[in-house]
């Protein structure tokens, strides 16, 4: 059953509204810019793809175009933040933080200045562009850097809220965004707080906790509905903040359910699954299954073809849940 408290859209299972998470960024950053004149946006020749062009139209004097130079993107922003601005830096995740990771580590994190790094077109869903542009390692890269908060919004509305919250945080943030249109699950009334995972679905007597992040959370809901038909009861949790992880919630649910499945459009190494495994290994070990990219690179194709090919679809989530149930202590 959908959790009432999550205040999800009524049509979440029936032709939900569609928008890319990056569109949420485009809206949110304009709102953040209205609320605080210190907010500036930088891009590396990708104003429209990153949706930064909305900010560019609203606040041309606070928009900075650095050209195709992602290392410059990070370091110019570090200087601006050092002065007192709140910069959002935008490019594809494959390049930002893919290409400028050391600059982010030294001049933003170690330097301790509040830059918000926005990696767009993350995951295999970017599709036809192929493996070079399909960032699948960014969460691991950014999670490893001290002082960084890491956020991966499940839909455009959550992305909008997360962007506004990130601007107020006063410390470095990584935000991961998708290119493809994906179901809008949340509403204006859905709670959002950095660091607080939210239950979206809860069965009567859940046996498996499924933790998802990003637009794949919708697939997790679809899987939960399938499983319910087979009398397998689960909890579905949207983990929008991968760092700091909501450890309390995760441990509670592992304890309650006894088995865990993680779902992400990212390598299974070092991402959401890795983060949760680290926590549970320490606090309350339970059988775990990991749905994600199994240590491979992607290729060209449609998002749907790639998600199926690499075993990250609804069917795979259902299988992973059953597998984890089989390993669960009775």
């Amino acid at each position, binding site marked *: 059953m959908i959790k009432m408290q999550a205040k999800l859209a009524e049509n979440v299972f029936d032709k939900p509204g569609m928008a890319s998470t990056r569109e949420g960024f485009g809206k949110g950053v304009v709102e953040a810019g209205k609320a605080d004149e210190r907010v*500036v946006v930088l891009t590396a020749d990708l104003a429209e793809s990153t949706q930064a062009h909305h900010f560019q139209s609203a606040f041309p*004097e*606070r928009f*900075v175009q*650095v*050209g195709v*130079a992602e*290392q*410059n993107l990070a*370091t*110019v*922003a*570090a*200087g*601006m*933040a*050092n*002065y*007192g*601005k709140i*910069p959002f830096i935008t490019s594809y995740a494959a390049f930002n933080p893919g290409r400028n990771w*050391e*600059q982010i580590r*030294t*001049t933003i994190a*170690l*330097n*301790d200045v509040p830059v918000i790094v926005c990696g767009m077109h993350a995951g295999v869903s970017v599709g036809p562009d192929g493996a070079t542009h399909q960032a699948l390692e960014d969460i691991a890269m950014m999670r490893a850097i001290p002082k960084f908060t890491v956020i991966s919004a499940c839909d455009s509305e959550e992305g909008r809220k997360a962007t506004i919250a990130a601007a107020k945080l006063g410390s470095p943030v990584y935000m991961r965004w998708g290119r493809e249109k994906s179901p809008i699950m949340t509403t204006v009334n859905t709670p959002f707080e950095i660091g607080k995972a939210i239950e979206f679905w809860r069965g009567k007597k859940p046996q498996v906790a499924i933790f998802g992040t990003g637009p794949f959370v919708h697939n997790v809901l679809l899987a939960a509905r399938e499983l319910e038909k087979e009398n397998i009861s689960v909890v579905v949790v949207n983990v929008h903040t991968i760092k700091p992880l909501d450890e309390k919630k995760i441990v509670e649910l592992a304890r309650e359910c006894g088995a865990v499945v993680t779902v992400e459009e990212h390598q299974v190494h070092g991402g959401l699954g890795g983060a949760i495994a680290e926590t549970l290994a320490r606090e309350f070990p339970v059988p775990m299954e990991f749905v994600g990219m199994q240590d491979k690179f992607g290729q060209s194709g449609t998002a749907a073809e790639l998600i199926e090919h690499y075993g990250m679809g609804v069917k795979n989530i259902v299988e992973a849940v059953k597998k984890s149930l089989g390993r669960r202590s009775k």
Partner: protein
Amino acid sequence: MSLTDQEIKMIEAKALEIRKTIIEMLTEAKSGHTAGPLGMADIFAALYFHVLKHDPKNPDWAERDRLILSNGHITPVRYSAMAHAGYFPVEECMTLRKFGSRLQGHPERDMLPGVETTSGPLGSGVSQAAGYALAARMDKKNFRVFCLTSDGEQEEGNTWEGVMFAGKYRLTNLVQVMDRNNIQIDGNTEDIMPLEPLADKYRAFNWHVIEIDGHNIAQFVAACDEAKSIKEKPTLILAHTTPGKGIPTIENDYRWHGNPPGKGPTDKIPADKQKEVFLQELEASRV
């Protein structure tokens, strides 16, 4: 505003004190870079004792000029200059690179007030200084942003991205001072990766370039003044310096790039005598 002879003598005397402290702190630290800090001592003395608008007792003063050190490995010269200028006691310099010290091996912004930025990995300073200068201009601030770089880090792509950016935005409030000492860790720059013609390259990227002798205080101060009058472009002060300046035994010897006294080449002076001999040579360099 030209300097009087007396002012020049005062700055030269400060530079000598800064150099002596560098030798002492590096010997104490048992690691760190010697040649670069010595080579930049005259410029640091001129900056902290004449050029910069700053207040050692109020390092966060909003209107201060910003000094962004890109090549963080020469930070001993900055620490020494800051200590002599009154930011902290000179004795604290002897904690350099030691556990618990505010004087990290490479400078960290949130550890020591006044260092402005964390640096060490090369090639990221010009971009940061350019971002700083652009942000300050957005808010109509009048302070200047100085960025000190090495010649070796001109080999980094990030440097040229920043140089291009500063040219595009016509950051007249930005002055880069490049330590052109011709050495890097593995040898002479023109052998490792030829950089010349540096001045032409910067002019081609829409910078105003002033070449100076980096040990001539009057020339450096005049170049900083000239940069103020350039209203169309950022300025590069290309400062030709002698690595190891002040200690004839090690001047221009790239092997002293990354070694402290007591740990450097021993073909001229035995390790245990290096500190003592270097301090004597420095004293003898007093004009």
